[in-house]
């Protein structure tokens, strides 16, 4: 039998990254401030986690201007959603085995 733990994604080990992905699978897009309010973290902390997810192509970032204010929105890629689903399934299996 395949070891369920191999499906756990290292990239989702942090609680903040889990939060980001949870929010992005139920919302098409979210902006930085929405994520910040939801996760209650500092700008720098959130930005570094978003950067890591972006580098692994789990999320895509788009920047545009709303009036004169820059606005950054985040969206989960299909690849990211798949990884997250695998991670969830692995967590469930682990709970079932306990």
């Amino acid at each position: 039998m395949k070891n369920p733990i191999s499906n756990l994604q290292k990239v989702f080990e942090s609680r903040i990254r889990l939060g980001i992905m949870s929010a992005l699978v139920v919302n098409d897009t979210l902006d930085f401030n929405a994520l910040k309010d939801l996760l209650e973290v500092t700008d720098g902390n959130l930005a570094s986690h978003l950067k890591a997810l972006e580098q692994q192509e789990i999320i895509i970032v788009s920047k545009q201007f709303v009036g004169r204010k820059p606005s950054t929105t985040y969206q989960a890629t299909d690849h990211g959603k798949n990884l997250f689903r695998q991670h969830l399934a692995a967590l469930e299996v682990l709970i079932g085995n306990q």
Partner: protein
Amino acid sequence: MKANLSNPKEDLQAIREFMERSSKFLSLSGLSGIFAGLCALIGAAFAWFVILGSGSLFYDEYLCSVGASPFNQVTISLTIDAIIVLGTAILGAFYFSCRKARKSGQKLWTSSTRRLLWHLSIPLVAGGVFVMILIFRNSVDLVASATLVFYGLALVNAGKFTLGEIHYLGLTEILLGILAGIFVSHGLLFWTLGFGLMHIVYGTVMYYRHER
């Protein structure tokens, strides 16, 4: 091997909570429902005892007997009465939601709030326009039924984005609206049940489930 398993149960709980909080408007207070229900009861009592001549005549018969113009005194008074009830109920919903959001340390105006209001407003605005058409065509007897059905549809539509009870409140309103259409002469009674009693019942349930 164990080192890698942070705590799957807590992780899943956190994921669930983040999903809910980011997609649902959870600051809706049961007290808004109770308040809206009380407003509706007062408004309905005013309509029955003052505008409709102390209930001495049936709702639709009375309205049919007052002439062909939609701009007769009774229709106008009922419309104003309904608008005051609606306005007060909305103010109450806003006030109690603000309070609940402040208490739980969350923001009131989020993307979930905007999404909830958007999905609520589509059937509601359509219903409002339809009811105005009914009034202008002098089919006032169907107004109670139409407001209940459209309001119920709006709640069912918005129910996905807030507390689950709203979905069932919506289904109840649709059912009452259809009954109000069948038993047209008791329109005001069904209106009172739907907007008054049901708001109080569901508001109380929501209050005890989520705010105690």
